[in-house]
């Protein structure tokens, strides 16, 4: 085999690298996944905290459910400075973009990885020593979460998937929706998948953005475990509360 000078010379620096190079590189895509991942994690926290208001019951002053007031507050963010619902709309656009970028990057990387792997497969069962169940099933857990999110939006935001849906009556909608055993099971299964997804993702993102120091590396795993556990327990508490009748 003979090597000569490679034919193409990359335009490696400058603005073209920014647009063409960085974001089309696998490391750049992993950066995007990590950054959108952080955004989605923060959203999960906010979403959970908001939803936990279902345990707060009825506001003694207005007589409305706390969680209904919370949803109203979201719609009136920005007060009289902006049209009603516009800030929430911006949040939703941002959230959708994060989803699209996160998933788009994952699809692009998956395609490249399958191409890099080629057709050859090991005959012997691979003995994965470091890769764990969560890391190897990111695509699967991600897909489950995506399907659930689509249903979740149709169910509780748009109401298509909930015959008893009443716009603005968050508490009643949730109770009505999660009282259906199939829906509650799907909800819980999706949250388990989400927890697996976070277990790897919340660890992996530090690696992707290069936050590394041998002294603190072990903390990354604790962080990921606690984060996943917090979201899982928090989210599961709601259907369980509805099932047991604690919230009705």
């Amino acid at each position, binding site marked *: *085999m003979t*090597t000569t000078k*490679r034919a193409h010379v*990359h335009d*490696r*620096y*400058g*603005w073209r*690298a*920014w647009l063409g*190079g*960085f974001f089309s*590189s*696998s*490391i*750049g*895509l*992993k*950066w995007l996944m990590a950054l959108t991942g952080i955004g989605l994690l923060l959203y999960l926290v906010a979403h959970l905290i908001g939803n936990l208001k279902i345990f707060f019951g009825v506001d003694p002053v207005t007589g409305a459910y706390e969680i209904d007031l919370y949803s109203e507050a979201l719609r009136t963010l920005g007060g009289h400075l902006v049209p009603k619902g516009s800030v929430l709309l911006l949040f939703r656009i941002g959230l959708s973009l994060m989803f699209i970028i996160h998933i788009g990057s994952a699809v692009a*990387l998956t395609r*490249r*990885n399958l*191409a*890099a*792997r*080629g057709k*050859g*497969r*090991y*005959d*012997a*069962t*691979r*003995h*994965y*020593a*470091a*890769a764990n169940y969560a*890391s*190897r099933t*990111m695509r699967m857990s991600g897909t489950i979460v995506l399907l659930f999110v689509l249903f979740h939006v149709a169910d509780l935001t748009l109401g298509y998937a909930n015959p008893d849906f009443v716009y603005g009556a968050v508490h009643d909608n949730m109770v009505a929706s999660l009282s259906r055993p199939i829906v509650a099971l799907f909800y819980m299964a999706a949250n388990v998948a989400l927890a697996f997804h976070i277990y*790897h993702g919340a*660890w*992996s993102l*530090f*690696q*992707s*953005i*290069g*936050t*590394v120091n*041998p002294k603190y*590396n072990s903390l990354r795993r604790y962080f990921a475990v606690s984060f996943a556990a917090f979201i899982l327990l928090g989210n599961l508490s709601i259907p369980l509360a509805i099932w047991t009748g604690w919230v009705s």
Partner: protein
Amino acid sequence: MNLSLKIWRQASPDAPGGFKTYEARNVSPEASFLEMLDELNERLNSEGEEPIAFDHDCREGICGMCGVMINGNPHGPQDGTATCQLHMRKFSDGDSITIEPWRATALPVIRDLVVDRTAFDRIIEAGGYISVNTGAAPDANIIAIPKEAAEASMDAASCIGCAACVAACPNSAANLFAAAKISHLSLLPQGQPERWSRVVAMVETMEEYFGSCTNHGECETACPKNISIDFIAMMNRDFIKAQFKNFVRIGQ
């Protein structure tokens, strides 16, 4: 001990390959894995069957020539050990062992267990060096380098280029290999002038051939030199920093 070996045979890069099973008899536990294959090859040769081709050279775990998938483990079951340093005492009588070549699009099989790893050279050629002409170097002690930095650089530099990291990776990524070389040089003061162009050039070349890192960490456990995936994180950090640094640099 007696072993049953299931070995990948492939006559040429384009030929279809397949597994063949061989019985290895009276294998000494003191023998190395490759010596066990030597013995088998001697027998095949005398029986009129072409010996199994496998890459190997120094048999001291440093040249990086050897490397096969042994029962689904790159370089076999022993941690931090290249195939040539693996000894048969790690196996038991009656074991069956599956021996396969590294598999990845960028590591095509040449014959039997021999694969083409020249894509690694392309990555180094893209920038895995410090541009210093012979004779132009200042006195070696003119720059003091903190011992910690020198040691960390040496940790990265101990890579032997065997490609077990690629073989182990579910994505066939070469990030550990590239990161080891990038970090070896970027941890040293001498490597600073080209640090930001190097990381971009090497990463781009790497990605022409290999998959992407999804942080499984398999490469680290497969590595016969136990090179840490921390170096991959350092490469990722440098890669984005380089976008800014290079942007500023062309404005100068």
